[in-house]
């Protein structure tokens, strides 16, 4: 097992290297000049050139790439072109809000979606199934920002129950922490839960038609035991896969939710950096996300053994 894990982690190194090259090239070949953006609208061409030289952006691409790779190998992701702050520091400041939001969304979505998927499969073809899947498709189809504005309008502006925006650290108390994350997590969670509910239903439907389920029912086991003990465990592999890949979907959704709810997370850091062409930050964040994706996939693969002992590594 340990050999397998080490092998998987080591195999991510060439993947990360390829990603690094692609990200660097894509960014530097994309139109847009941080020097022109920094200089501002009033600046002259001479101002822009002066800033470009000061930032080293007039150096050749290979030269810039080698400098960047050299920094990465020493664990340094560089400094922001704008703020002059280390990229690692900027990312570290933003991780807590994003991880908190993603985890809360995940917990809410799994708790809501899996039972819905199981019930829909159990009642397949009935009005219950249709109603649940209609709601799932509806929420999956509504853009996250629409849901977000709707929730803000009602819960914050009309009823004044929850804050419109912002983030409070967990260290500042569970109340403020949750009150600031409820609306963003629900906005994001509805989409994610819809996807997960549909996948759970499909996986469960397949399992419910297996012979051993028929046998379990014939032996007189109750519906609850059949569904949640025998069927769900065997349907868990595709559900876990969806949860894992959905995490990546979550990261995409986090970008929108963090903007709508002004949560200072990694998603907003990325958007701001892209709009400003703050290359070191974009490169750092993408490398981080790529690594996170590799680790999440590894975690998913390892978790299969927990639900299916037949799987061996």
């Amino acid at each position: 097992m340990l050999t397998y894990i080490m092998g998987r982690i080591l195999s991510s190194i060439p993947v990360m290297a390829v990603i690094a090259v692609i990200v660097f090239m894509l960014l530097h070949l994309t139109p847009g000049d941080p020097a022109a953006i920094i200089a501002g609208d009033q600046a002259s061409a001479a101002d822009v050139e002066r800033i470009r030289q000061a930032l080293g952006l007039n150096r050749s691409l290979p030269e810039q790439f080698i400098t960047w790779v050299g920094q990465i190998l020493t664990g340094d992701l560089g400094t922001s072109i704008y703020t002059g702050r280390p990229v690692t520091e900027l990312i570290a400041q933003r991780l807590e809000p994003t991880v908190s939001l993603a985890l809360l969304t995940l917990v809410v979505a799994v708790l809501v979606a899996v039972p819905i998927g199981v019930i829909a499969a159990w009642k397949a073809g009935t009005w219950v199934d249709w109603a649940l899947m209609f709601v799932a498709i509806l929420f999956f189809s509504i853009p996250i920002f629409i849901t977000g504005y709707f929730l803000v309008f009602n819960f914050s502006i009309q009823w004044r129950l929850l804050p419109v925006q912002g983030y409070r650290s967990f260290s500042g108390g569970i109340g403020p922490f949750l009150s600031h994350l409820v609306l963003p997590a629900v906005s994001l969670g509805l989409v994610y839960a819809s996807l997960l509910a549909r996948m759970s239903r499909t996986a469960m439907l397949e399992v419910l038609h297996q012979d051993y389920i028929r046998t379990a029912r014939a032996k007189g086991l109750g519906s609850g035991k059949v569904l949640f003990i025998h069927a769900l465990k065997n349907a868990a592999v595709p559900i876990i896969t969806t949860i894992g890949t959905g995490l990546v979907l979550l990261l995409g959704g986090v970008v929108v939710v963090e903007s709508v709810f002004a949560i200072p997370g990694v998603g907003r850091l990325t958007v701001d950096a892209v709009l400003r062409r703050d290359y070191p930050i974009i490169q750092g964040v993408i490398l981080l996300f790529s690594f996170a994706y590799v680790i999440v996939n590894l975690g998913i693969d390892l978790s299969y053994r927990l639900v299916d002992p037949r799987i061996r590594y």
Partner: protein
Amino acid sequence: MNILTGLTSIRALLGATAVGLCLSVSPTVAQSSSTIKAVMQADLAILDPTFTTATITTDFGYMVYDTLFALDSKGEPKPQMVDRYEKSADLLTWTFTLREGLKWHDGTAVTAADAVASLKRWGAVDSLGKSLMATTEKMDALNDKSFQIILKKPFPLVLEALAKPSAYTPFIYQKAFAETPPSQAKHKVVGSGPFIFVDEEWRPGNRVVFRRNPNYVSRSEPQDGLAGGKVAKVERVEWIAIPDPNTAVAALQNGEIHFLDNPLMDFVPVLEDDPDITVYPVDKLGQTGMIRPNHLQKPFDNPKARQALVKLVKQSDFGAAMGVPKGHFIECYSYLGCNTPLENDTGAEAAKTQDIAEAKKLLAEAGYAGEKIVVMQPTDIAILNSSTQVLIQNLRNAGVNVDAQAMDWGTLVNRRNNKNTPAEGGWHLFITTNFTSNLASPITHSYLQASCDAATSPGWPCDKDLQALTDKFQGALSPEERKTTAAELNKAAYKSVPYASFGQMPILAAYRKELKGVQTSRLPVFFGVSLEK
């Protein structure tokens, strides 16, 4: 139970849950009464006001730094850090003496040497500063408190230059900081202004924190615009970054922030209807919209094609498209801005009426024969996006084959520096806005420069007659002479059309009723502002 009763019960249940979650934290202003929370027009990213012309960095400068002179509400330069000044009868020698008690945030005294070094750094990058430095024979500190500027020839705008409110503003830095070349951004902030930047609490993209400078010695006069006393009346000011304009407005309505700079125009009527919120013009002169043609590319290398642009514009249409509320938009036909000392509409008669047929005729006379015209459309800035759409439609109405290319502002500011043909990555037209205060003088009006060299702004106008009038203005010493030259310049500009204006609009801000003492001062400043419960 009817539906309404049911909804009420659900609402009560949700309310109880939410209140439980919030515990003691209310979403409405839960902060100390001595902390102003403000959302500014952009997020602060660069701390050096001589490194960038970004407005937010200038706003930052006014919080933590100080200036030798400052403009009052009438636009007159008044001493700020300067206690007194003398000018010789021939207007060649200017001697300035700093006020007593001025200190840096690290406790050391502000000296005349700091001022001289700062002016030299500013004079290397700012257009007005460069003009002043070009006519300066020498500038030296006489002692700790006094310095002298000796000019080669009289310069009509010495005090105006030292009080320049928009980028680049001549803020006074510590000498060591000021001796850094302006091409190198400084990230360490030691100012002498009424607020101290709290570096350790700065979270780029999230919040900027300032605390009151207890050692700041304010002028004794009452605050008047950016001039007069700068009394910090609150302990802290926090600039919160809320990138989504809807969320920012909701946060203001909900009392989570106190001040919102430059709200989206669409929201202004909503905010004006809220009894707890006041909308006011931060800067009455505001900004002016401009359609900038590329003077190097056909057909806009021909003045007739540029005159056609003027004939295509109906300024009120642009105002409506940008969502500027009625009463705030000014149709303006003065290249030197409206409500400015040099406002005039000489030579603008033909521009006041939209005439698509005439525009079509002028384009034909300029040799336009249906070639693709590349219009760069910045989709991420609402007012520029909507006004570009009006321009595109007007061009199509005149039979122009428009190639509208959508892009973000970051891409546009890069591409507009490209002098190649549109087929090689160049462009024909783009829209921008500029602070009217920058346009109020031909010296600071970068879009009016037509010197035929690389130093002009993208668009690269080349008109020796127009440029001669700008140069003539620099030598005009009396107000009458300046006004006469300004009229000649407006007439020449409507003939040459360095750009076509599409109106002037104020820069608005909104604040909650708890804030007292907010003034129209060209920039959103927080000295003189208190927070009451």
